């Protein structure tokens, strides 16, 4: 019995144990220290930008900081949200195919290819999006503007180059696809075989089995995968900067030349020529982005924790 009142046994500490626990602790603390350092930098450098006199900073053009950052925040969340709406269903589909439909050799190859997609640098996605994808989808945008302009999303006039927020979101969707797919696949594979067999034994078809056993089990995994993807989409810089034709506006039209920019892309475009207080303004927008990602991740944590009963433990 372990619950007797015997004196607590202490394992003998060997130098290797101490060294390992020490380095592990240091590694853990380092993450916190780095995060704190980044946050401190953003706050110290960003606050002068938030309180900057609009007349003295060329970036603000006489409006205050919040008017400047508003459309950027909207554009960041808008483009990431459109990307997620496109990426999540496809990612779930790919993950289900790999985990439950594909023959084993094909599944392994396909999984490898999806992971490979994550290794493509974002600059390459940007080049592809701007020079290939935008050109390819432009006629489709023109068609949408012609036939569906009564829907506010497609109000048009369609962009002549296809470099719109929808194109940027497609690129973002492709970029977050491997992350979401990989997590969903791992979670779906962990569905207890007993659950699946029970469903099949009760006469469920394969799709019904997935609906009643796999998807409910994997819901937390899907959410956390989607949130990780959202985190990447929110912060993506080069791909958006290279694809998007950006203005500082808020608009829901996703196929016209006038699109809201994103915070990260705006920093990348404006920073090279920025000086003086303009730099602080840009860093302050970075602080806002930092806060947005923090909030998104907190919400994701909250959702995942609330759904704990579905996680691998049972």
């Amino acid at each position, binding site marked *: 019995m372990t619950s007797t009142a015997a004196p607590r046994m202490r394992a003998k500490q060997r130098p290797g144990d101490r060294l390992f626990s020490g380095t592990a602790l240091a590694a853990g603390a380092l993450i916190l220290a780095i995060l704190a350092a980044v946050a401190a930098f953003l706050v110290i450098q960003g606050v002068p930008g938030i309180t900057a006199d609009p007349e003295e900073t*060329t970036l603000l053009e006489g409006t205050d900081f919040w008017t400047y950052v508003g459309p950027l925040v909207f554009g960041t969340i808008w483009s990431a949200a459109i990307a997620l709406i496109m990426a999540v269903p496809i990612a779930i589909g790919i993950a289900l195919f790999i985990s439950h439909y594909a023959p084993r050799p094909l599944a392994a190859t396909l999984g490898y290819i999806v992971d490979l997609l994550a290794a493509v640098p974002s600059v390459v996605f940007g080049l592809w999006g701007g020079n290939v994808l935008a050109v390819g989808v432009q006629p489709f945008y023109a068609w949408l503007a012609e036939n569906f302009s009564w829907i506010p999303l497609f109000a048009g006039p369609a*962009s*002549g180059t296809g470099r719109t927020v929808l194109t940027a979101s497609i690129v973002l969707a492709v970029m977050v696809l491997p992350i979401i797919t990989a997590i969903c696949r791992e979670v779906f594979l962990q569905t207890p075989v007993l659950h699946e067999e029970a469903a099949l034994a009760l006469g469920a078809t394969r799709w019904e089995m997935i609906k009643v056993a796999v998807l409910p089990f994997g819901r937390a995994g899907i959410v956390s995968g989607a949130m990780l993807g959202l985190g990447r989409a929110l912060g993506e810089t080069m791909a958006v900067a290279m694809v998007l*034709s950006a203005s500082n506006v808020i608009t829901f039209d996703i196929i016209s*030349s006038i699109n809201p920019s994103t915070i990260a892309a705006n920093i990348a*475009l*404006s920073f*090279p*020529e920025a*000086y003086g207080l303009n730099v602080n303004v840009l860093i302050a927008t970075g602080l806002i982005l930092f806060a947005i990602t923090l909030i998104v991740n907190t919400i994701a944590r909250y959702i995942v924790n609330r759904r704990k009963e579905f996680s691998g433990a049972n």
Partner: protein
Amino acid sequence: MNFKRLGTIGAIAIAGTILLSSCAAATGSTDGEGTGSTLTGTLVGAGASSQQSAQEAWVAGFQTANENVTVEYDPIGSGGGRDTFIGGGSQFAGSDRAFKDEEIAEDNFASCVPGTGILEIPAYISPIAIIFNLDGVDSLNLDAATIAGIFNGSITNWNDAAIVSQNDGVELPDLGITAVHRADDSGTTANFTDYLSAAAPSVWTVGSIETWPTEFGGEGAPQTSGLVDAVTNGTGTIGYADASRAGDLGTVAVKVGDEYVPYSPEAAAAIVDASPFAEGRGETDFAVNLDRATDASGVYPVVLISYLIACNEYASSDSVDLVKGYLSYIISPEGQSTAADAAGSAPISSTLFDKAQAAVDAIK
């Protein structure tokens, strides 16, 4: 004991390296005298990114001729370059605009002797090409008002009467115009819109701007290469970019007086001679009031001009010879043709060269 021995070996090695490298440095300097140059030291400049490729070529050329000299040019942008120069962080600056009268009147240039003023030379003249992508059309004739109308969104189709009337015999399609502008703040945009506001003030009403007004619409694309890509890949697109980057795209011949002038280095350099120097400035201040609305023949008015800015009299004499040497090299025919090869700029005219050389020689 082992450590001790290693330490001894290390000490010998370090001492040896120092000895050898000092020998190497000594031989280096004798070699330097061999090329006939007595200049040594480091020259620091900062400023306009438009000059970047030209400055890189100048630095390479100047350092080859003077091996003991290091020139650093930091392309932080015109505004940053002027601030750095005022603060004394650089010995010369590159800027897409000259200092304003009131900035010179403040006379707080940290590197210069107070009261001696500054030297400003429009040493980098680069034509801006108006590029477009239309199947089967290589060149279009347009006047300033039409160009301004296209870029402010009031002319939206290629078969608009304003365009057709100026281009007899060119088949213009019934196709929407997509005007592409720079998404980042850019001296190219500032100079292009400066031309529009000077030559077509009734159509282009917002003056010379760096940030594109949202109400004008059009596409935004980052950097010169992004803009050229957008124009190349789009249909019915038009944009503006440094002429060296126009490639195979169609270009616009701009109406000046009664004729249409296509861009060329000579026509671009001609506008500096056709324009008066800014009045009320020092003898060595060659700030130009570009007369972009000029009627003079053979002038291409859509140009980007970037200045080299230095002191007339330096507070510390350390860098005087370096500044003189480097600026002389830049404005020399050799330096100008180096930049023309590297950046597609237009060599300055011999009239400007004579005046600028005299001013550079007078630097103390």
